[in-house]
Structure formats: structure tokens, C-alpha cells
């Protein structure tokens, strides 16, 4: 049992160490542009990707680095993508907010809020004709629950019983605005009933809870039971983007968030179960070392060739 939890801890630390290195590179200069970190939300991609099959499709958002890493996209190629290098997963065409790596089962980030949900329906629909037993997972934030495209996608998936898992990462803020101020009923999972699908609000800071519910939803989806909405409660420990002044935070809020964030929580659990501290903390060191090496390799790679900027527009 503690072996799996150590593996979860490592997977979460890989995400966090990646994100912290990205923040360092963004603040130092080599990475430019908008960057949205998922620090604090690591348990959701780690738990979900653990139960995805290679044939399943995964559509994330601009806060998608953790999802890509957890799905198996190599960190070095992700750093290279954010750094605009030739060796990036998209050779620098996608950037931090819109890269894809279908060869790893990661069908892309999306920097339009809610846009991935209808696309995921299509990936699921395709599975009905190609003999695969593919399910599609689409990830979005609480803010996307107020987008028309997400509503259309939920109804479309439900009407046709498509194998889609709608994963809502509810970090309580729609960008910079509290979601609670933007809806009249705060339990977003309750909306699922209106589409005729199951909806659950779960603890998104608990890897095991995420794994359990995503596995269950995938099973239902693949047995022709239709879509599920999972509202995963979480919080980001960082701003909406690097540079966000976070003046919307309330006094004491960050202390409360840190007290229940998923990595500290899992670490405390492992220690309480008697796993030696040096064994637990070696996981962090290992993840950080991996990301340092990956970032260094990406920084040493050549920039994307400007002569290729017009390529790949059409077949």
C-alpha cells in the first residue's frame, strides 16, 4: 500500500518540480508569455492518468502541464516546448498553453475555456466506429462550467451515451473571480442530473479518491453507460498565471490552502504510517533532480528554425 502511495507522491512531486522549474525559467527570462501553473492541483492528473488506458483520449486546458506529465509526455520535450525549442513536443508551435502530444495519448491542452469538451465528445464518438473501446476524458476548470460549449458537450455526450468523463477541477476561482459569485448553486456536480448523467463532488486533493472515481467513471463509460461529471475540489497554491497579483485572496486563505494541499497531505500520511522520513523525502529530491536534468537538456537544444514557421498549415 505504501509503495503505491510513494509512487503517487513521486508522480505529484514530478509535476510540482516541473512547475517550479518552469516558474523559475519564466521569471528568469528564457520562458516568455502566459504560463498557468497547476501547483496545488497535482492529485487530479496523477490519480486520473493512472487509470487511463493507452487508447483513451485526454483533452486538458492551458493549466495542462501536470496532465501531460502524468500521461507520460517526457519532461524534457515539454520544457523544450515552453522554451521554443526545435525539440519541443510541437517544436515550439504550441507553447505553454496549447501543446499536444497525441503519440503519448495527450490530445492537447486548449487555451479557449471549455473548448475541449465538445472535441472530447468527438474522440469518444469515433470509438464507436473504429472498434476501439476508447473513452475520452476532458478536463476543465470551474469557470468552464459557465461556457455554452461545455453545456452542449454534456448534453451531446449524455444524449448519445458517449464514453466521456468530464473532469472539472474546481479550484474555487474562475480565473481571478470566485466561482461562488458567478453561480447561484455552488455544487457544480449537481448539474449532471439535469443532463441525465451521474455527477460527483470529490476530494480533488486526494489521489486515491480521484483514482477511484475516475476508474469507476471510465468503467461505466466503456460499458456503454454514458458520461460522468466529476467535480474535483482543489485549490491552486499559485496565481491564475505567473504574475497574478492574487489580490483577490482573503486573509488566512493561503495558510488554509497549504494545510490541505495534496503533497503535504500525502507526505504526512506516509509518515504517520511509519514510512521513514528519509525514504519519503528522497522522492522529492529524485523528482527535482529529474526536472533539473530535463530543463538543462531542453535549454541546450536549438531554437525552432524560423525557416519552418510556415510549414504544416495544410496537407
Amino acid at each position, binding site marked *: 500500500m505504501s509503495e503505491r502511495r510513494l509512487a503517487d507522491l513521486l508522480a505529484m512531486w514530478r509535476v510540482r518540480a516541473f512547475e517550479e522549474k518552469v516558474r523559475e525559467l519564466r521569471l528568469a527570462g528564457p520562458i516568455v508569455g502566459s504560463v498557468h501553473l497547476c501547483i496545488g492541483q497535482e492529485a487530479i492528473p496523477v490519480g486520473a492518468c493512472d487509470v487511463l488506458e493507452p487508447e483513451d483520449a485526454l483533452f486538458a486546458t492551458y493549466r495542462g502541464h501536470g496532465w501531460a506529465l502524468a500521461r507520460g509526455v517526457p519532461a524534457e520535450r515539454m520544457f523544450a516546448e515552453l522554451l521554443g525549442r526545435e525539440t519541443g513536443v510541437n517544436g515550439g508551435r504550441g507553447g505553454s498553453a496549447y501543446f499536444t502530444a497525441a503519440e503519448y495519448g495527450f*490530445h492537447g491542452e486548449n487555451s479557449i475555456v471549455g473548448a475541449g469538451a465538445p472535441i472530447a*465528445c*468527438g474522440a469518444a464518438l469515433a470509438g464507436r466506429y473504429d472498434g476501439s473501446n476508447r473513452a475520452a476524458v476532458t478536463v476543465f476548470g470551474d469557470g468552464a462550467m459557465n461556457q455554452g460549449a461545455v453545456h452542449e458537450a454534456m448534453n451531446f455526450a449524455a444524449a448519445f451515451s458517449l464514453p466521456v468523463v468530464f473532469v472539472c477541477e474546481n479550484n474555487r476561482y474562475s480565473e481571478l473571480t470566485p466561482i461562488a459569485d458567478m453561480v447561484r448553486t455552488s455544487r457544480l456536480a449537481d448539474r449532471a442530473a439535469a443532463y441525465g448523467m451521474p455527477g460527483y463532488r470529490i476530494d480533488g486533493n486526494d489521489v486515491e479518491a480521484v483514482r477511484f472515481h475516475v476508474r469507476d467513471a471510465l468503467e461505466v463509460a466503456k460499458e456503454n453507460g454514458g458520461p460522468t461529471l466529476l467535480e474535483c475540489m482543489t485549490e491552486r497554491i499559485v496565481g491564475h498565471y505567473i504574475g497574478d497579483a492574487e489580490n483577490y485572496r482573503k486573509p488566512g486563505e493561503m495558510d488554509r490552502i497549504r494545510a490541505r494541499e495534496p503533497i503535504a497531505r500525502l507526505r504526512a500520511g506516509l509518515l504517520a504510517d511509519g514510512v521513514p522520513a528519509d525514504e519519503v523525502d528522497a522522492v522529492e529530491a529524485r523528482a527535482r533532480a529529474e526536472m533539473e536534468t530535463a530543463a538543462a537538456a531542453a535549454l541546450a537544444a536549438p531554437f525552432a528554425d524560423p525557416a519552418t514557421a510556415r*510549414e504544416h498549415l495544410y496537407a
Partner: protein
Amino acid sequence: MPETRKLNYGEAVNAALHRLMAELPETLVYGEDVGLPGGVFGVTRGLRKQFGDRAFDTPISESAILGSAVGAAMMGRRPIVEIMWADFSLVALDQIVNQAANVRYVSGGRLTAPMTIRTQQGNAPGACAQHSQCLEALFLHVPGLRVCMPSTPQDAYDLLVTAVHCDDPVLVIENRTLYFGAKEEVTVGGPVQPMGGARVRRHGSDVTVVAWGAMTARVLDAAEALAADGIEVEVLETPWLNPFDTEAVLASAGRTGRLAVVHEANVTGGFGAEVVARVAGAGVPLLAPPIRVGAPDVRMPAAPILAQALLPDADRIAGEVRALVKG
């Protein structure tokens, strides 16, 4: 084997869809009312019966229709989706412009979106302002999309076949005033035609008139009337707008020394401006400044008598071209 059939424009689209569904098992046809009802114009009739659940009806959800087409195409299907009116695409432009058009480019070609969007546009008597717009210029501004506008039954067949065989997102803009037109001999079952190209619909030496879509027939009528006045019009139809056969326009305008571009869309920002700019930019010597003939920059009124006051018809086209030639 190729064969010839007498088909009107709508029937030609239908024949193309039947062929494509038969020859490409990865195709799907779906949209609002396209399955059991066979489409509001009857264009998808028979597909559900013949191909079962590969042809189906959807909720009135353009974002879901277009977005699911992007996702299905990424996964190896070749969806042919219908947006009942081009005006309705505006509620879901994100899936066309931000999503479909980006897939190949951003992934460096590792992910593609081979999907065809069939729609129809333009004014028909009594249509309101939200069912009358000509939006091709909007889509022609978007790199990554292919756009065509068939005007004959043969083109309605050929262009759709080419579009669906294309590995990129293609927008096929039909015109509902053409669906129930005269039956013509249409060759079906022939080889897939290459994308692009222009066609000289009438040879002439005094002026080149470039047209596409439903305006082509009106331009041909105008050319006939002008011939009686001794003005020989070269009518160049460009059914493909992306890729656009600029060379054909340059060559024809170079021969005649005069250029008019006619489209039903309103003139400002219309694709006619782009055609004129390309000819000007290429330095083709012209005897007179080129002209654009289109709807004026107003909304489209429902009353036929008001709409007719705005839309280019054969008389107005002939008048403007005559003025261009006579100076």
C-alpha cells in the same frame, strides 16, 4: 465506374454523399435534422437508411457538432457535418477558427482534422437578416481552412468529393436557391478532382468578371445582355476560394485589361477586395480601375422588394460592367 445522371444541384450533393459514404468507411454524416428527416432541403435523404448509424441527427448545438467533428477527425474518422445555415456557424466559430484550423499546424502535422463542413448561405426571398448572410470572406481570413462554393450540379458533386478526400478542414458553402434548380448531366463516380482551379465560363476580350457561388449565373446573364451591346465579357468562375487560382485571374485580366469581381456578400472586407488587391499587387496593366460589385454595407431586409434593392442582379451587374468598359 463513371456514369452520367440527370441531377439538380441538391441531388448532386446527395449523390456525392452516397458515394463518399460508400467509398470511405471512415466518413460520418451528421447535423441537425440530417438523419431521419434527410435534411431541411432533402440533401441528406436516404443516407440514414443506407448507412445506418453513420448518418444521424444531433441536438441543436453547433459547438457540439463542430467540436465533435474535430475530435472524431483527430481520431481517424472523416466527419461530414452540416451547419444548416452559414449564419448558424457564428454561434460556434471557436470550433472552426480556434480549433479545427489549428490542429495540423500546432501539432506539426502529427494530428490532423480531416473534416468537411457543409453549409449553405445567401439570400432567398423572404429570408430574414439572420438567414441571409454571405460569410465566405470571414472563413477566407482564416489560415488552415479550405473553402469552396459550388454553383453547378457538377461542381456540387465534384467539390464535395474533393473536400471530403482532403486531409484538412474544408468548408463547402452551398446555396439553397440552387438546390432545386434545373437538372443537368452530372458525371458521378469519376476520379477525385484536384483542389483549386478556375473555370472560364464564357470567353470574352473586353473585360474579366470573376464570380463564385450563386452570382455566377447572374454574371452569365449579364454577359449575355452585354454581348448584345457589343461588349465581350470573360466570365471566370472560381469555385475554390482557398486555394484561390490567382494566376488564372491575373492571366485573364492581363488579356482583357479590365476587372470586375462580383459577389453576393457586402463589399467591405469581401473577398473581392482581396482579388482586386492581388491583381493590383501583381502589376497587371489595366485600362480602367477595377471594380467590385456586391451588396452594399447594410443588413439584409426580409421583404423581397427591399432585399432586391440591395442584391446584385443581372441588370445591375450589366450596368456596372458596361460603365467599366465604356468609361
